[in-house]
């Protein structure tokens, strides 16, 4: 149970309980504004009955022709609000919007080590489309899985047929 609505600038002042999470990156202002200014419908937040922010999702749609797709940039839920199926709900919302925009698929990137997240996305119907080498930089670079789920437009589920070999970051065309 929550109130799902579009993310507003004021929410940036209240989302500390979600963003202090070590796996949730706190970005500079510009990053959030870019999403708000271009894809406001893809930036949703859930508020609890007690008025706390519970979690949010930010994403976008991009690509050409059969590559036209929805992308999940971040989805995160605060610790007190886990175990409620909220992330699930947020993902479904994003898929629904992408579907209505006639996207062919939704995709996302995840650290290959993040087993919990990978199994969560699996349950939602996402499969590994390809591995992107050294996608995450840091003390130790890490590969990412590019996971995808086909939408209604992709009748033959062409977009999710896995690639045989991993790709380098430079080979990503979007």
């Amino acid at each position, binding site marked *: *149970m*929550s*109130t*799902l*609505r*579009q993310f*507003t*600038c*004021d929410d*940036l*002042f*209240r989302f*500390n*309980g979600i*963003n*202090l*999470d*070590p*796996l949730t990156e*706190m*970005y*500079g*202002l*510009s990053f959030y*504004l*870019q999403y*708000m*200014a*271009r894809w*406001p*419908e893809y930036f949703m937040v859930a*508020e*609890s*009955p*007690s008025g*706390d922010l519970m979690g949010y999702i930010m994403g976008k749609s991009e690509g050409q022709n059969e590559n036209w797709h929805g992308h999940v940039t971040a989805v995160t839920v605060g*610790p*007190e*609000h*886990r*175990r*409620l199926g909220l992330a699930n709900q947020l993902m479904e919302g994003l898929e*629904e*919007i992408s*579907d*209505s*925009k006639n996207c062919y698929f939704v995709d996302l990137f995840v650290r290959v080590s993040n087993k*919990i997240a990978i199994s969560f996305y699996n349950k939602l119907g996402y499969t590994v489309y390809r591995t992107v080498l050294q996608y995450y930089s840091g003390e130790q670079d890490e590969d990412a899985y590019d996971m995808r789920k086909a939408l209604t437009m992709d009748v033959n589920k062409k977009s999710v047929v896995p690639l045989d070999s991993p790709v380098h970051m430079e080979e990503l065309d979007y």
Partner: protein
Amino acid sequence: MSKHSAENSVAERRLRPIYDWLDNGNNKKALQEADKVLKKQPDFQCCRVLKCLALIRLGKEGEAEVILNKVLSESPVDEGALQAMTIAWRELQQPGKICQMYEGAVKKEPQNEEFLTHLFMSYVRLGEYKKQQLAAMNLYKVAIKNPYYFWSVMSLVLQAVEGDPALAKTVHLPLAHKMVQKMETSGKLEQEQEVLLYILILELKEDWKSGLAVLDGPLGIKLAKSASYRNFCLAKRVEFHLASEDWEEVAKLSREELDRLPDQWSAYTQFISAVKELKDKEVTSTYTAEEAEEFILSQQTSHPAMRGPWLAQLELVSTLQSTALLPPLILDYFSKFSTKPVTFSDLAKYLAMLDTKQQQELVTQLTNQYCDQPINNIGDICRDVNLVQLSRFCGNMTNLSNSHLEVEVTRLLAKYNSVQHIVTDMVSTDLRPPDNYLVLASHLLWDMWNTTKEEKYFMQCTALLYTGLSTSPSNWQMKLMLIKLMNVVGAGAVSYSLHSSLDIKHLMLDTLGWLLGRQLSFSGQLGLASQHASQTVKLYNHVNKDTADHIITAFRSGTFYQIRDIYKLRNRLATSHHFLTMDTERQLLDLLLETSIHTQAVQMVSYLELADEDKDSKDWDKRKDNRDMNTMASWDPSALGLTKEMVDTSFQTELLYSRTRQLLLKTIASAVYLSEDMVPIKETNSSTTNGEVPSSTSLATNLSNLTSSLQSHWSTCCQVSTATTPPARHAQPKAPSTPSLSSYSQSGQVATMLDMLGVASRIHQVQVDTQTKELMGECSKHLVLGLEALASKIDTSSSKLLERGEILEQVVWLLESVGLSAILCGVVLSLIRGGGGAKGGKKGKKGKGAVQQQFSELVNSYTSMLGDLQEVASKLLELTEKLEANISAESLVTNMSGLAVDADEILANEAGEV
């Protein structure tokens, strides 16, 4: 190849190497290359601009500006020149010139769509709404494209939102409305975003009826069909009906929403409040209280696993029936959802509605029911944690004797230990549910520490939290709690490292800045404080550019609601109180830490970025409180929790204190200006434009105005601090740590500064009389009192950890006072030597350096004034050494004694110069 394109390609070939050098950062080469090309083609605009870019990056802004202005006056239309010039003006931070540049280009080529677009965007950067509006309209005339038309409309809306509200109502909004209507009637309103703008205008006009007509009409229906806007449309429809108090419709729409989204909480609250309004107003309606109850019960049957319908029943009963009916419903809700970590938060609102007796009964019932239940999995842990939180909230852990509280702590620790085997497999990045036992125990220990002042509770509290962190290193609740504990005892370096481990950055520095910002200074960690303050201030300095970039993006994508939202954000950050605080403290710290002699002080003052006093004096109390006090967990009973009043009082005090510090900084700076007869850079710029050079008289007036502002503001502060009793300092871990005005007054800082400023201004007016001498003789009297107060505290309570932070705070204020006094001594000396164009004094370089004849009888007073201050400094040093001896954790004061030496050195230097 035509002649024109041939010329172009030649030009491009010649410029290519310059671009390359600039890109590679080799500005010297770029400059050489540009000069080479210009030798052959001295009028080559683009090349001249590129030369300027090289000059700017070589630090020769002045030279560049001359050339750029020349090119600007030629109204270039060459694309390369325009692009390069945009960059150059931006680097010179003169965005207004970009507008001028495109105005010139548009004049030459009025049909050029691209120039007009650039002109529009350059106005957007400056927030020139009116000019934006006209530029967009011209654009639309040149190229009839819908977006341009709506850019113009949005610019009107911005005039309404940001400008005079009366004009908004009578002129801007009606006009915007008319403009959109015109498009609607001619069938040209097409895009979703345009309809959104239409709705935004009607919302701002508070014209709910027309707003609903749009939402319910063909445009709104079409918009609502898209998944992107369905929820938006519904929310707006409800909002507009709410605003026009059409409760029947609110109830109807909320119901429809609940049919589709049976767990949407806002729909439940809207529905229930609408039913209440209908009932209270005795309106005949299908939505009666009985019907509402039936509906919610049916929602429970159809969606038994969802929390919404169950919690909605509590909302319904408490709103429409009686809180007496709540307890069994709370029990029921708990039994259904207790394994979710959020259950306590869900229930807190309703628990708070019960009286003490009901609360007690409820806790007993729940405890009896669940205390013997085995804990085998994470869900069970959550249930038990919820129970413990609920019991704390209902007052079960208040008004207990210490021995009972100690038992509670032991019990919580035992619970924590007993369930560890269940969570051993959790990854280190996850927060572990049993950590909450520790956090709650730490709150109980905090309370005991505060009431008894016994150190063992503090030790136990920190030990327990650190132990918790060793197994659950990502738990920020424990870290936040530790930061608060460390702040109280003045262990700033520890707070700092905990803070760093939380990776608090960007906007968090604004919302959570109150946790650390000033505490670093108060614990004597002045170096860290300065570093932290600079880092924080950077956030605010980028806001204008960041927001402008995205406002432009939003114009391009037509996300008009977001444009308004981003402007609000910009305003909220620009007027953030924390910004004012950190900016002032940073500059005060620079003055204190980076200057040992008068010339350095002069240099430092010339670097200060002081805001316009006319504006500050009007707006200082309109600053926004962006502090986030909700992220730190607390399950305090509602009667003892952090209230809105406490937060407000704390904020009022914050404002008074920050303004005092701001005035202090400005006044000291203006005294230094006066002593050197120097003009602040900002004013130099404005004075060159109108040809007037501020005289020493205007500097003196400035100082005297600021001094009297400081005086009157400070007397307000003193009145407020005596009239109100501040809340107990460390009442709750969650409470903000606000400086106490009465402690600040006790340090004697402001009084001393006012006295010394008085001396400086009397000397500037050549008042060489007994009164001046007396004033000079008494300059350190307030500091001496401050020292005495400090000494007695160090004697009686410095061993108490609970008071250590406050003692350190006094030490820091006194240290600052000595440092700032030293700077003002430099001012006085400079004036005595004929600086600052003191009346009758000989100005000029020759006269300066020796004591002026007319001031010779003040030399003795000056020397003894310095002597007094030196004595204060050495006594302070003695006291800090004593404090250090009293404190076992020596590291706390190493920085302090370092600073004391600095202040001593400053005074020694000043003395040496006499």
